[in-house]
């Protein structure tokens, strides 16, 4: 009851809850497409690659406004995705190796810059390291507003191009054959994924952000066979885990938000993998046992 009261009237808690819910919804929705298109790891690479963008944006402008830093993050994430495509197209390096190279080079460069910035005796750099593991408690109303606007844009585009994105995810060749510009749609969907990552960076951090793309979608897939239901469920799972994790981390000192949120969504994934009807492990085991028993009974009946 007290928590509910705080949620409504406490400025900080309200920002945390709203911000985390937004992050969960957006990454839950875009994550479905990333997972279905087998691009989950691309999200991971782009999230890690955002770090040097954040630090560089700060070094160049000297500003700590989240919008400035997030623009840097988006540019760096986007650059990483382009570089990745270039490596895959132009060299003989396979996709998984290319992902590994891009991720570690960008992230390593980001850590180097971060260490350099932190040596400066300037108080303004304080707090940049929160982008590593996220810090929901640092969310202010302005941040939440930025997240809400970016998120609304992302969701609007998903709604407008719903049928095109669905076809692109299921059968890109057919989409191209009937005349949709699949290259443009592909770039657009990837850009929206970058947006979803950027929205979550301050709360979850670059290291674990990809979990917020992958986990809600994987959990949602277990419970439904319809894309629309999957996207809706994924958004709910993402939002729920986001709020729960952020609130838990806000109650204690020194609990990083990113890992807490990720543990929450992991619990949802675990339950979904085990219990979901039709696709869950328990359901499958039970079905197999039932089948085996029935066959044994039929065989036994036949021999008598």
């Amino acid at each position, binding site marked *: 009851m007290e928590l509910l009261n705080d949620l409504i009237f406490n400025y900080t808690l309200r920002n945390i809850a709203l911000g985390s819910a937004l992050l969960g919804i957006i990454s839950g929705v875009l994550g479905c497409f990333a997972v*279905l298109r087998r691009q989950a790891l691309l999200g991971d690479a782009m999230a890690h690659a955002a770090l040097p963008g954040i630090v560089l944006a700060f070094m160049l402008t000297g500003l700590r406004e989240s919008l400035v830093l997030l623009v840097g993050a988006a540019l760096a994430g986007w650059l990483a995705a382009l570089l990745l495509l270039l490596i895959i197209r132009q060299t003989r390096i396979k996709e998984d190796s290319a992902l590994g190279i891009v991720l570690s080079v960008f992230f390593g460069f980001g850590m180097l810059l971060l260490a350099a910035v932190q040596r400066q005796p300037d108080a303004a750099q304080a707090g940049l390291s929160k982008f590593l593991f996220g810090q929901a408690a640092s969310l202010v109303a302005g941040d939440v507003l930025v997240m809400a606007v970016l998120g609304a844009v992302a969701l609007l585009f998903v709604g*407008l*191009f*719903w*049928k*095109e994105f*669905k*076809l692109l*995810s*299921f*059968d890109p*060749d*057919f*989409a*191209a*054959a*009937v*005349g*949709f510009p699949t290259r443009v749609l592909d770039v657009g969907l990837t850009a929206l994924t970058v947006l979803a990552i950027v929205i979550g960076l301050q709360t979850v951090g670059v290291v674990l952000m990809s979990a917020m793309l992958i986990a809600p979608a994987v959990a949602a*897939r277990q419970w*439904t*066979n*319809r*894309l629309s*239901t*999957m996207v809706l469920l994924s958004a709910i799972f993402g939002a729920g885990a986001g709020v729960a994790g952020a609130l838990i981390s806000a109650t204690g000192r020194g609990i990083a938000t990113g890992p807490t949120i990720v543990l929450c969504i992991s619990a949802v994934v675990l339950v979904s993998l085990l219990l979901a009807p039709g696709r869950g492990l328990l359901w499958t085991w039970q079905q197999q046992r039932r089948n085996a028993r029935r066959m044994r009974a039929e065989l036994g009946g036949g021999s008598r």
Partner: protein
Amino acid sequence: MQHAIDVTDLTVAYQDKPVLWDVDVSMPPGVLMAVVGPNGAGKTTMIKAILGLVRPAAGQTLIYGKPYREQRKAVGYVPQRGSVDWDFPTTVLDVVLMGRYGSLGWFRQPGKHERAQALAALEKVGMAQFASRQISQLSGGQQQRVFLARALVQDAQVYFMDEPFVGVDAVTERAIVGLLQELRAAGKTVVVVHHDLQTVPEYFDWVTLLNVQKIASGPVAEVFTEENLRRTYGGRVAFLSRDDGTGSGPALVLPTPAKQSSAFTD
């Protein structure tokens, strides 16, 4: 007479290796044509190049005298069944509805009219009772029929089908043949990548023999000869000519045992 399909000088290369070399194929409307050839002969690539999915190094394709770009709505496409993830969260009806997306264009969602068309197409391929089934629960033959239904709702004049007979049961094979004949009766033109040389004379009117270059293309009775097959498959097929005296070319074509898999599967 206006040709349904006119392919001229079509050449496709991956890096420096030509996959298709200077291919010319023309076919009249209302004809069922098989495209046959060994693995890596460029059969799928030819279809993809015609549909603009692969960029040709040279050559052009005309559908009823106009570039494909202007004729998209007159062309239906059945990709290889294995080219998509059948565990995608969607239903049979939903996949068939995708055949209308091109005509709907941007932003418009399929409605009652499109749903009726999709159900009618499912009826035609004998899958109406599976409309709300999740696609991962289908057998290979059923998946193939769903793809055919999706092409049917495209309501096209010219159809390209990539290996619709691969891995399907006898029931589905008969259903597909029946459908092809219906399409021909309605004046449609159909190009089918095919593997079973034995059934070519039975199912098709025309045939294109392809092995990177076009070996021959024309009416089955004229070009589906022992000589042309030998040139296409390079001596890897043996022939038993028909002994019933009809003299309509090789009735039964058997691969030599050692090369069986390479000549008859993809």
